[in-house]
């Protein structure tokens, strides 16, 4: 009963927090007072609520941590432009976009660079009305600022998608402690505090029954060890990879859970950013292939007992592709699940402003609040499940890839074939749920 009540309170806080956050943004987007963020979709007219850009803005990484209204926590910026060197400082030096510093400008929470080399160094006040300092070009695909009556085009930070997703290498790189980085640091700190205490409890209490935090986390630890690492990797090798699997699971879990908190320490879409999942998946790739034994490579590159032409034209290409596809599937699965969850919740909250007809209809907003609030409450519970499930799936599939790489092939081939299939099928089944 107590748990149910506290759960309900947590939920109310969650929903309320999200509403408040979205509410402030809505307020900002009205553009009457002092909107911090301008609507990129509004083309400089009277800003109206644009759900897509609002949501895209909220799931994106940012160089400042927006708290509420006009209040943001400034974050350190570390910028590097080839031929220009490093520029460091706090994100507050940009005055929410009103000031350019050494050619860098704050645009919708992200630092952009003025591509033109003729732009003066140091602090430069930009021309604009209200808070509209960054203007969009007519086609909406580029942005510019005005200074000294001249128009300067903006570059976004470099991304490594090779232009496939609309990004690419630009004139500078952003190595700032962004909102996502700060949240990951917080997650790491939390993990160190929690597991430091748990670990010392094991030292202090010896072989006595676990208690407190230790008792709370031991079943989770034992579950991951006995249901993920041990069956997937095998009794002989699993202990070697246990720290990696545990780190994967708990790091993703804490980041997921922090992402569900709709206000300050949380709200970052960390595991919903492909950069984060890419690093995790790449590490899985490295660990898997660096621990691969002779049999693993033999079976990957030149499967024994199969005609050579099948190997050459079918099996080997498929297996080599599989080396890459496996971690890529890990990367996309986690990224898509978490981002989708954030988008759904933000869409439901956005109903308030859509029904409210941009502030004109209070009744509509109230209806939206009730409907959106209820659905958000429901979605939050599902997201809570997804937070655990995705961490579990990532850890389990990583373990199964590693397990396939270190599997002993002493026993008969057919034996291990069924073994492998069994483990793999089980993992895939769980993954697709």
């Amino acid at each position, binding site marked *: 009963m107590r748990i149910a009540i506290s759960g309900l309170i947590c939920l109310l806080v969650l929903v309320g927090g999200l509403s408040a956050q979205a509410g402030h943004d809505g307020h900002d987007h009205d553009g009457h007072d002092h909107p911090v963020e301008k609507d990129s979709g509004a083309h400089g007219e009277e800003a109206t609520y644009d759900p897509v850009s609002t949501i895209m803005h909220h799931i994106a990484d940012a160089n400042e941590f927006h708290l509420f209204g006009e209040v943001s926590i400034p974050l350190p910026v570390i910028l590097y432009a080839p031929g220009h060197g490093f520029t460091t400082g706090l994100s507050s030096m940009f005055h929410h976009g009103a000031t350019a510093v050494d050619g860098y400008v704050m645009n919708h929470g992200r630092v952009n660079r003025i591509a033109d080399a003729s732009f003066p160094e140091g602090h430069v006040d930009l021309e604009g009305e209200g808070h509209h300092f960054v203007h969009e070009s007519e086609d909406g695909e580029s942005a510019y600022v005005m200074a000294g009556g001249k128009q300067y085009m903006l570059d976004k930070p470099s991304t490594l998608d090779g232009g496939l997703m609309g990004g690419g290498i630009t004139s500078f790189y952003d190595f700032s402690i962004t909102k*996502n980085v700060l949240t990951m640091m917080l997650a790491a700190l939390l993990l160190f505090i929690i*597991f430091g205490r748990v670990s010392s409890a094991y030292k202090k209490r010896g072989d006595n029954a676990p208690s407190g935090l230790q008792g709370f986390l031991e079943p989770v630890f034992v579950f991951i*060890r006995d249901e993920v690492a041990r069956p997937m990797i095998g009794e002989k090798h699993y202990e070697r990879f246990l720290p990696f699997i545990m780190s994967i699971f708990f790091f993703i879990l804490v980041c997921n859970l922090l992402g569900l908190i709709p206000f300050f320490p949380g709200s970052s879409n960390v595991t919903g950013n492909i950069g984060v999942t890419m690093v995790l998946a790449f590490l899985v790739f490295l660990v898997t292939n660096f621990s691969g034994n002779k049999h693993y490579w033999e079976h990957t590159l030149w499967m024994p007992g199969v005609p050579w032409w099948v190997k050459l034209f079918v099996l080997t290409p498929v297996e080599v592709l599989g080396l890459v596809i496996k971690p890529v599937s890990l990367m996309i699965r986690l990224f898509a699940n978490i981002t989708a969850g954030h988008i759904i919740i933000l869409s439901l909250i956005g109903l308030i402003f859509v029904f409210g007809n941009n502030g004109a209809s209070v009744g509509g907003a109230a209806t939206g609040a009730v409907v959106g609030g209820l659905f958000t409450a429901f979605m939050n519970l599902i997201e809570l499940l997804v937070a655990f499930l995705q961490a579990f799936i990532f850890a389990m599939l990583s373990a199964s890839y590693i397990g396939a790489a270190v599997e002993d092939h002493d026993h008969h081939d057919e034996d291990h074939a069924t073994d492998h299939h069994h483990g793999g099928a089980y993992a895939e089944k769980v993954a697709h749920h």
Partner: protein
Amino acid sequence: MYQLFLIDFSVIKPDPGLLFWTSVIFLLVWFGLGRTAFKPIQKALKKRENEIQDSIDEAKRVQAEMAQLKADNQQLLAEAREEGMRIKRDAEGAANRIISEAKEEAKAQQQKIAADAKRDIDNMRNAAMVDLKQQVGIMALEIAEKVVRKELSDDKGQQQLVDKLVANLN
């Protein structure tokens, strides 16, 4: 509005800064927590599990030992009881034998005593008979003397004397 939806979908564009910081933070978590927490916890858990298993094994062993001891005890008890019975039986047999032997001996002794007594009696009787015969002889001689003397004086008197002597004799 955007011409391309994906343009502002920035989360799908891997940012090198984020890649860098994610690597740093995750490697820190992996090696730091692995060394300070996950390995020691696994070690402690394994130790505890082993100890629990050992305790169970030990308990089972002790239980088996106890059962064995109990069985041994019962066997010992049964053996002791049997031994007791046997001793008792033997004792009874010995007692009976001793009693019967004693009885035999007593009987033999008695018979011997009786035989001795009879022999003594016979001896004494024989001695007495010898003595009697001597006495009778002496008496007969005396009587004969007296009769001879009386005859010499009176025939009638002689007869009376003989009768009287005979009567005395009896």
